[in-house]
């Protein structure tokens, strides 16, 4: 049994960075406010790295998202493994050309001559009243693209393990952090090593209904467990962890077992990642399902500011319980 350490997501990611940078001098960090004199990034997740590894390896950049991702891509082509922070997920939109047209496609377009082993860390998530342009969940945009892996861990141990894997992965990875997951404490084995990308985790085992979820929504699903139990519903929670390429095997096995599936995500429901997962389940398991797959996601509007509206925008534990009861009925 390895020793368990108590830490939050920020500390877990920081621990992964320190380990990765010690082990491999090719690992670099860049982003706005990233070095220690500027605070170690917007959530302080990169704190201590520039002091420890030097500002040649850990560089604060201008507010130039295209230049940040471009520099990461070029350094990767030059043999390095850069970890770039895009302060907030909405700001990836101004670097979309670099991410989508270049980082994600250079391996294919070059017929395998080139690879772009970059990790892009970015923060998002509603619940802090940051409204329309600072908290969208855009994982579906990136999951739609070929050539980039999309990761969204919900526990500190997974954050550490998945971050270690992203850094060493030969392909570009988008690592999504949320306020809720970063600040939630949890246990991390002292020797927590890399966790394979593309593998979901059955966070809670159950027999009546499968709930597929990820990121902060996993925590909201956990919050529904007690009420589900009181209603006599045994829920299996599958934390997808990697959105693309996603773990069909684990999801389909759980869906086949329970016959009732709900997909809950913070992203807008329409055309969201849940649609792809639901369609696959219907294609693969049509005859074995007891009910059509249910999708829960945000309504198709900008993230609202007013607290009552923001609460209504998010998929809350109560919504999950209500949807589960409907699936059981």
């Amino acid at each position: 049994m390895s020793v368990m350490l108590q830490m939050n997501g920020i500390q877990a990611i920081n621990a992964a960075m320190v380990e990765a940078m010690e082990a491999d001098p090719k690992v670099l960090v860049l982003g706005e406010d990233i070095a220690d004199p500027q605070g170690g990034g917007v959530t302080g997740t990169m704190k201590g790295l520039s002091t420890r590894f030097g500002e040649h390896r850990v560089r604060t950049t201008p507010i130039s998202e295209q230049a940040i991702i471009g520099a990461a891509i070029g350094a990767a082509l030059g043999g390095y493994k850069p970890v770039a922070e895009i302060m907030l997920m909405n700001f990836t939109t101004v670097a979309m050309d670099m991410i989508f047209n270049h980082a994600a496609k250079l391996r294919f377009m070059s017929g395998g001559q080139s690879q772009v082993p970059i990790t892009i860390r970015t923060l998002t998530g509603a619940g802090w009243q940051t409204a329309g342009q600072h908290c969208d969940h855009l994982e579906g945009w990136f999951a739609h693209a070929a050539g980039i892996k999309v990761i969204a861990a919900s526990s500190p141990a997974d954050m550490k393990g998945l971050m270690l894997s992203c850094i060493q992965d030969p392909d570009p990875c988008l690592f999504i952090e949320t306020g809720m997951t970063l600040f939630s404490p949890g246990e991390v084995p002292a020797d927590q090593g890399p966790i394979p990308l593309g593998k979901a985790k059955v966070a809670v085992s159950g027999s009546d209904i499968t709930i597929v979820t990820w990121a902060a929504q996993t925590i909201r699903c956990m919050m529904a467990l007690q009420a589900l139990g009181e209603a006599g519903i045994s829920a299996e929670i599958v934390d997808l962890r990697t959105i693309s390429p996603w773990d069909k095997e684990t999801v389909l096995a759980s869906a086949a077992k329970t016959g009732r599936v709900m997909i809950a995500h913070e992203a807008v429901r329409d055309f969201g990642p849940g649609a792809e997962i639901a369609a696959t389940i219907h294609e693969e398991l049509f005859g074995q399902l007891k009910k059509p797959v249910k999708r829960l996601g945000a309504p198709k509007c900008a993230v609202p500011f007013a607290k009552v509206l923001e609460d209504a925008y998010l998929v809350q534990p109560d919504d999950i319980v209500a949807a589960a009861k409907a699936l059981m009925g």
Partner: protein
Amino acid sequence: MAEQSNAPKPDAQALLDIFRRMVRIERNDDAIRTAMRRGRITAPYYSGRGQEVIPATISHFLNDDDQICTIYRGIHDMVAKGIPLRPLWAEISGKVDGTCKGKGGPMHLTHPETGVMVTTGIVGSSMPIANGLGWAAKLDGSKRVVVAYFGDGASNIGAFHEALNLASLWKLPVLFVCQNNGFGEHTRYEIATSVDKISTRAVSYNMPGFTVNGNDPDDMYAHVHAAVARARAGEGPTLLECKTFRFLGHLIGDDDFYMDKAEKEAAMAKDPLPRLRARLIAEGHASEADLDKLIADIEAEIADAQEYGANSPTPSRDELRRDVFAEEMPA
């Protein structure tokens, strides 16, 4: 322009090297257009005809391990850098022996072995990535330099401004080489660009910037010499605006309706390639026979490459699942 009277001048050997690179570009361009006309190649093709002096002179100063990031109009840049012609032809023919296994095509042709790192179809995007390669060169402690090629139109896109600012701040060994051919697609320079000279934009980023006659090997030679020396010495980037003219429109098939016929004719009458040939002979650096031989050898190399491309097999459908990630995608 070459304001320095003591500016370095190309000697006979340098002029011959620049000429040889120009001939390879021009003969190769001609062969591609002929093959397209005959229906042997189907591809979007953006000719660099008329712009040969720029990459020919720059490549004269580049080592094998120096790198370039170029654009859709970039085959002239790669040929000047020394990309092998056989896999180039196989690539533009969409064949497995292409540098990119036929998966990139002329707009995304790369060959890292000869330093052709990125070819982008997105206006302006060569520059931010060149910075990263420059950063890597610096971290390696090497003297490598990186050239980012782009057009005049690209100096109006955000990536240009973000990239120049970062390169200057980080003193990156990058040459920003704008091939100002007077047009962005069908739009004339002055309709799209707020400054008379793009080189003046360097001032905003605290880096040297020069407007150079991109069709004049002497002017190019002096400025590239200085810019490469500055980059290798770790002193940082330079912006070179190289004035030239696009002889064959935006892409093959362009009917020139938006161009001033007299202006175009005048520019084409000053074709830099025959001018350099005449000069080599006039200055006694080569004989007609020497140059004819040089051209014939290049034509033979191109004919061989074309044949190689034509005979190479087409890629299998399995290629759709390969190179998406390092690991092959499931069927």
